[in-house]
């Protein structure tokens, strides 16, 4: 990952903007990319110090230093270094320094004589002894593996990495998705939980929702403590679909507060935005559409956020001809904890009618939701069946109409 100091950004008023990588810059990136990948390949088997000297010598004009150093950082991230010496350097130092101490104490210190004596004691050539004396220092490490990256890939990573480098200095981000698929919501929620970030979701115009994301202590300290996590979130956001992101960043030596924006409308290179529904949900949705059940189905665009419990994004909504509607979320084999959370939502009485379709192996009984609940669980073995789901929908309809009966 690029570091914040390698971002090609400039301040404009109270905003921070990434510099456009125009043709001239791109051409220089290509030239330097070729030079640097050649340098790295040519130094396989040589020392880190030699590599450092060589890549610093790659020509970069005063305004190109960040371009060069950014490419170097990305190449170093994938380079493997190891200490390769014939003799254990620690053992060599122990023998040399003990002999040297004796020589100093006897007022007979002679550097050459101490090294000759140590080489004799360790039965090694004097040159090997000197090479090993500090042979395990960082600069003496040997390059054992260099990255096998094309220049094109390297430059793509450099450009894609710019926004991520800026987000390392972010205090908080606000991300607006105009149409985030339910599967995407769950993916985002999982990633936020993994990164231990907190969020608030607000409905904006039409079908768009805004996620305000920061960390637990952000409400007390407006620092960049969560910048790394926010930067780590960016690849997930890019994989989910088009979005608009506003970030508050602390920039420059004085950590000035600036705003930073990302408008993303293309899938990350080499990937596609995920489909709206998961595999099981797609199958069930299509089967319900084809069935003659008295229920019509429509992909959902709703999202429900319950503070401290999480987010529920139904896959689709089933509407009865009477006007009664049930949101269906196919949880499949996601997680047992997620199912229990939904039971909590339902028990809290805050939801519109919901049907949660879950795999039986998650070991949550359908009966955990009381017979008078507005919502229900539907547990299945291999794949959810239309018949089971329609039965549950009818059950919820009867309950709503005040004529509940036991499931068939």
């Amino acid at each position, binding site marked *: 990952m690029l570091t914040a100091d390698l971002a090609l950004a400039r301040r404009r008023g109270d905003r921070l903007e990434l510099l456009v990588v125009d043709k001239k810059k791109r051409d220089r990136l290509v030239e330097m990319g070729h030079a640097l990948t050649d340098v790295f390949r040519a130094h396989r088997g040589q020392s880190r110090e030699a590599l450092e000297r060589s890549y610093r010598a790659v020509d970069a004009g005063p305004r190109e*230093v960040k371009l060069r150093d950014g490419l170097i950082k990305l190449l170093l991230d994938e380079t493997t270094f190891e200490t390769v010496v014939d003799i254990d350097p620690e053992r060599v130092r122990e023998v040399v320094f003990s002999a040297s101490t004796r020589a100093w104490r006897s007022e007979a*210190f002679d550097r050459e004589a101490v090294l000759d004596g140590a080489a004799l004691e360790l039965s090694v050539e004097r040159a090997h002894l000197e090479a090993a004396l500090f042979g395990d220092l960082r600069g003496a490490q040997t390059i054992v593996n260099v990255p096998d990256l094309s220049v094109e890939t390297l430059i793509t990573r450099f450009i894609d990495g710019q926004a991520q480098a800026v987000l390392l200095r972010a205090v908080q981000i606000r991300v607006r998705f105009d149409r985030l698929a339910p599967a995407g919501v769950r993916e985002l929620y999982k990633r936020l939980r993994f990164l231990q970030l907190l969020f608030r979701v607000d409905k904006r115009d039409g079908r768009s929702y805004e996620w305000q994301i920061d960390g637990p202590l952000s409400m007390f300290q407006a620092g960049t403590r969560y910048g790394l996590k926010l930067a780590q979130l960016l690849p997930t956001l890019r994989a989910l679909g088009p979005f608009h992101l506003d970030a508050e960043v602390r920039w420059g030596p004085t950590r000035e507060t600036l705003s930073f924006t990302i408008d993303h409308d293309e899938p990350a290179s080499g990937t596609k935005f995920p489909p709206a529904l998961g595999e099981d949900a797609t199958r069930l949705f299509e089967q319900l559409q084809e069935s003659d059940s008295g229920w019509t189905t429509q992909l959902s665009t709703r999202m429900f956020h319950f503070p401290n419990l999480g987010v529920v994004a139904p896959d689709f909504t089933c509407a009865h001809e009477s006007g009664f509607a049930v949101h269906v979320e196919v949880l499949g084999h996601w997680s047992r904890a997620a199912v229990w959370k939904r039971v909590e939502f339902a028990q809290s009485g805050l939801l519109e009618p919901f049907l949660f379709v879950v795999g039986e192996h998650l070991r949550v009984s359908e009966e955990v939701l009381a017979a008078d609940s507005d919502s229900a669980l539907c547990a299945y073995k291999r794949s959810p069946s239309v018949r089971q789901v329609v039965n549950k929908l009818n059950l919820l309809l009867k309950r709503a109409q005040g004529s509940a009966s036991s499931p068939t």
Partner: protein
Amino acid sequence: MLTLRFVSGSIEIHGDVASAIALPGAARDDRSGCLRAPAVAYAAIVRALTRQKVPFVDEARHYETLALTVRASRDPRPYQTEALDAWRAAQGRGVVVLPTGAGKSHLAVMAISEKQRATLVVAPTLDLVRQWYDLLGSTFGQPVGLVGGGEHRVETLTVTTYDSAHLHMDHLGSRFGFVIFDECHHLPSGAYAHAALACLAPFRMGLSATLERTDGRDANLVGLIGPTVYRKEIGELAGEYLASYDTETIAISFSPEERAAYDEARGIYRGFIQKHHIRMGDPAGWGTFIRLSAGSAEGQEAMRAYRRQRELAFTAPAKMQYLSVLLKEHRHDQIIIFTQDNASAYRIASDFLLPVITHQTKVRERSHILKGFTARTYGAIVTSKVLNEGVDVPEASVAIIVSGSGSVREHVQRLGRILRQGEGKQALLYELVTEATAEGYVSERRRDHDAYR
């Protein structure tokens, strides 16, 4: 009924929060539908709820009360007893300032023994972590945990570095009732302060010999640990509890060729910073120089010149010759040689074949070198900055500062390495300063302390 939970370095208060009394440090968090406070406020929140008889379930605290017995006890010195009394009177939250060698770690052991809570010790370097690890293990005779330096083992007594504490406190912060910040002047820096905020330990102790920071952030320690509850300076303990000492500054001259090379490099560097109105004395001066020097060929030349003049002053041949004289003169003493940078340390180690400790030296080898120094297998150690703080080398009686920064703290810490009391011990600190260079000014700045008057 309210419920307190520890979540990612904060305290969440769930339940009927709308009717909850005003709780210190807590605020409504709409993201999670609860009240939230930084974990440091835990003790104050519990006290407020208890005082007002509000029932609550405490699911936040995950630390144990211990039954530690001290296996090797020794009588405290009067000032250690006074310090412990002062800390206790401040509800077990506060900073104690004592000179190096005065026994700060023994004071900490007394406090751990008194409070009997799961304890986390946070120290700035791996050498100090290893030292605390050995001390706690031998004093209490039970397994000690270690987090940092490639290890992650948590026990009821655990030692960690500031770096690891900052990284891991979000999930470790509920497991200790007592936290000790050794060399606590490090704590107020932006990132490290999080370690204190995200830990709920009700009992907190800060230890330092050199509390004051040039950026004034030592004032933040009041909120992170507690107020300064006890203080003694070197002058108050020297002779009786610390070794007597002398300091000597040796002026080193350049040869005419070296002088010309120095003046030329210095002229290029100074010309650049004057042209761009960079004030190197300002906290942001160095950062500005780095930024501006990268932006032009002239700046890059200025950066090379800066490095050249520094290298000439740090390792002037006459300095190396005088170092050789001192090594001969003190051949029967135990010597620590300090440098400003690693390159100078390795150059001296290579020229004089002396053991060297820098941040690149692995823990096992550091330990071996320090043991060899104690056993007198080695008579001298070269180091850059890693031995500045806390590391206990009681045998050392001579310190030679070959190069250093203008930091008063660093200089006092380096002096402190040789002050551990020994029978008839007379400590000596030499400072080698290249004449008529920036080193003269730097040397004057760092000696601005009572210890050098």
